[in-house]
């Protein structure tokens, strides 16, 4: 990328053109759904290499190299926060959560208990000895080793005996570091985590949940929750016997794709709505509503834990993909937060979901200036936190029949996105014409 240092971005931005349509110049680093969505958005024009832009869906590599060297005009938007890795790197997230938990313990025991959604985790090599102590306390439990920076399931393995990890330390770890010497000078960090051996199974299969959260500001914290998401199933049947079989345990679609019996046409996903129906039929409304409320705690607490650390820049927003696991006791666990959740679609339904997700993200970023800023719902995004909890209005017709929600979140609930958007933009239009 031929950007000179200290470049000014978004300069020739025209506030208003004839016909009340702004032209928004965008760049996009990815060649998938987001590209389609940006190109189809009315009034948005793709700017070429070297040209000025108002919006960039960038990749994190570009951000790391260029963010500090550019000056963005006020209206410019970019899709990552400078130090998002405080939330998305597994070891940093754990550290931040632990700190939040300690902080809350001083204030309120009940609040700190709500932080119990991440499995016991230690960083290696720095916390090796603490880990070994804990390991010895619970012999026979399964632990999972994950490199902090890799994704798509690379470099992950499970073990039950200390011997396995000692062997790995001697050979595998060093071998990995040999590879890495070309890339960075530092030694690779891993985390070792208590493996969740009792996942909730459907049809004998393990699954995890992918849920999308949009953060438009950290200070004050403003976060939106997308109603739709999906459950990703493992292709093979779950059993702790086959620890070596990484296909069983890792549910990332990326890993599943390399499993011998993977059928790309199959799309081993369920929508969150489908999952919600299934769980409700099994466990009843109340129980399932509580489970979904548990999720809110996960999102809010995880964001709060990094709120003071993330460099809050008004140009930045970020769409996170949360990976969550449900265990057989209907408790939720946070596995990971992704700053660049996959936007490639595996089938038509997936494509439609991602298009909706991205369109609504852009609706909320609102470069066109259509929204008032007081909305609690835009398309399928519900405002979850606005410097404080957001509550659904009483008697709101958005509520699913059944126990009404205190908070303004509707995961897996009824999905009438297009109708809501029509209503919203029509009422905004009316307000504008009324205002003259």
């Amino acid at each position, binding site marked *: 990328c031929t950007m000179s240092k200290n470049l000014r971005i978004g300069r020739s931005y025209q506030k208003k053109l004839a016909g009340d349509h702004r032209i928004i110049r965008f760049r996009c680093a990815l060649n998938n759904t987001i590209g389609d969505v940006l190109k189809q958005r009315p009034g948005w024009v793709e700017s070429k290499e070297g040209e000025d832009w108002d919006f960039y869906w960038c990749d994190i590599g570009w951000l790391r190299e260029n963010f500090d060297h550019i000056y963005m005009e006020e209206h410019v938007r970019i899709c990552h926060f400078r130090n998002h890795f405080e939330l998305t790197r597994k070891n940093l997230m754990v550290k931040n959560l632990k700190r939040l938990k300690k902080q809350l313990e001083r204030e309120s025991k009940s609040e700190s208990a709500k932080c119990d959604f991440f499995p016991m985790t230690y960083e290696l090599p720095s916390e090796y000895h603490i880990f070994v102590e804990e390991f010895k306390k619970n012999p026979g439990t399964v632990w999972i080793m994950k490199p902090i920076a890799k994704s798509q399931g690379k470099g992950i393995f499970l073990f039950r005996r200390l011997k396995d990890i000692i062997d790995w330390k001697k050979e595998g770890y060093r071998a990995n570091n040999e590879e890495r010497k070309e890339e960075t000078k530092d030694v690779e960090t891993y985390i070792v985590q208590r493996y969740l051996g009792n996942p909730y199974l*459907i*049809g*004998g*299969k393990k699954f995890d949940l992918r849920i999308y959260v949009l953060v438009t500001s950290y200070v004050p914290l403003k976060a939106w929750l997308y109603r739709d998401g999906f459950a990703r*199933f493992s292709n*093979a*049947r779950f059993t702790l016997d086959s620890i070596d079989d990484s296909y069983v345990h890792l549910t990332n679609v990326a890993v599943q794709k390399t499993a011998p*019996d993977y059928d790309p*046409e*199959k*799309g*081993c996903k*369920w929508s969150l709505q*489908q999952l919600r*129906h*299934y769980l*409700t*039929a*099994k*466990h*009843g*409304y109340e129980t399932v509503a509580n489970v979904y409320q548990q999720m809110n705690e996960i999102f809010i607490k995880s964001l709060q834990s990094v709120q003071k650390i993330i460099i809050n820049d008004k140009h930045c927003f970020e769409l996170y993909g949360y990976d969550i696991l449900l265990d057989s006791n209907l408790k939720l666990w946070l596995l990971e937060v992704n700053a660049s959740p996959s936007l490639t679609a595996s089938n038509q*339904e997936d494509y439609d979901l991602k298009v909706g997700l991205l369109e609504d993200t852009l609706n909320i970023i609102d470069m066109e200036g259509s929204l008032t800023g007081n909305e609690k719902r835009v398309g399928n995004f519900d405002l979850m936190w606005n410097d404080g909890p957001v509550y659904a209005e009483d008697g709101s*017709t958005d509520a*699913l*029949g*059944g126990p*009404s929600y205190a908070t303004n979140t509707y995961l897996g*609930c*009824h999905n009438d996105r297009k109708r809501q958007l029509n209503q919203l933009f029509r009422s905004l239009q009316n307000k504008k014409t009324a205002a003259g």
Partner: protein
Amino acid sequence: MASNNVSEVAALITEIIGNLNGSTLQAQLKRAAQKEVEKSTVTSATLKSDIITSLKTSGWEKILRNEIYKQINCIPKCFDSSIPFECQKEPLMYMRKAQANWEKRILKSMNSMCTELSIPLARKRPADEQRDLLHKWNEMGTDEPDLSHFRPVYAPKDFLEVISSVRNPNYCSLYGHESEEYPEVCSEHWGLIQVPLEVPRLTELQEKFSEFCSSLPQGGIDDSVDAPTESFQNERNRIARRVLDEKRGVLAQHFCRRGCPSGNRAEMWQLALGVTVDHLAILKYDQLKGYVLQHDLLVDSLIYKDVKLTSVNDDYYFVFEDYLYQVLLVFSRDTTVLDHFVHSSASPPKSYIRGKLGLEEFSVIYPPNGVIPFHGFSMYATPLCYLYSEPIRLYYMFREMYTRYFHRLHSISSHPQGIISLCLLFESTLQSTHPRLFRHLQEIGCQPLKIAFKWLVRAFSGYLATEQLLLLWDRIIGYGSLLILPLLAVAIFLFRQSNLLLITSASGVEGSLADITTLHVVPLLQLILFPT
């Protein structure tokens, strides 16, 4: 009960008592009664009334009532022993003949597949293969046997061809003979089905399905998102709880008529159909599982292939693949399924021990349960996987649903709920409620039954969204009738009629009706039954 005749009732009672004689329930009741007698509070003077009271309070009376209710639902209405058995199964001779020919065709197809692939119909598994299979019992879906040479024995469209060609030889048109110049005028029916069976008119159906009337709140409408009140749903939940606590099958069945709340549906259906999974049932299932391990049947490969082709390809049902094998493989070994042939026009297919073709003493029923699966058969079981996650309960629920209702969807018979009557009801209702649409479709060369048939044969499984399908099957169980299926099919055509009237080709119509997953079942049924 519909019968008014005293002798009919008497015959029914005799039949039920005969069925209960020697059954487990009788033994259990006897034991409970004996326990009561041993109590010191019982005197010989009041023996009878004391036992009856104790059986009432301990809940045995309810169990007996449920069993009797179940029997009433399952026993065919005709008890006259002077009528030969085959006529009781199917009174019309030309239907019997058509069904017999159809069965011959299916068996022939299966046998020829056997000889082509040189696979025996049944073979005993060697010990290590048995061990393997036992080990893999919970994950048979991971097996990827080579099924490329197997073809399904038949598909619904083959079956449609057969039933379209059934004719009543005694029937002749008004013109006295088939006129070559005006063949259209001479045929009584404009649709595909050409047999003059009586089908209920809309007024009769309105009476039968009176609880669909729009003045009554319904599960599937009033508990949906857009409805402003939660009270209907709370009320339904409350009543459901009471019905389940009361443990009466007849109440559960009536409750289903207006839809079950999803949290109670599994239990409600089980109570309504009178399916009890006690330790004997579990033993029986294990015994059947043992049969599966011991012998490999050709039918197993057909089942595998069907599951892989249909259920696994479905976006929602693929998860339940393993359960389907555990249910369907066991199902084909279950000889109690043979009992349902008493009230079906079909007969179980026979095969002969090698070398003894034609000799009756060497004939065996193949497969043991007498049901040869066709393309899409596994879809009868898939929606149930949604409700029951324990394979044994799932199995018995599937078996009950099949032997009570679904078997009628793939055999040729004059039964008022048989597939032929359902097809005829579909065609005649569509013609009478919207003749213009019917005529238009015919003019562009599209027979509406060709599209609706696949929905009917599968009871809409795999075509509707799961929630909607379960609401539909609520009503099948609630009213104990499949007549709802053709009504829904007509409603779907009517719902999309403005689109259909503009289409000018048969393939266009198919395209327009290819995806019905977005439709809501209950408002559609109200549309057709009680149009305002």
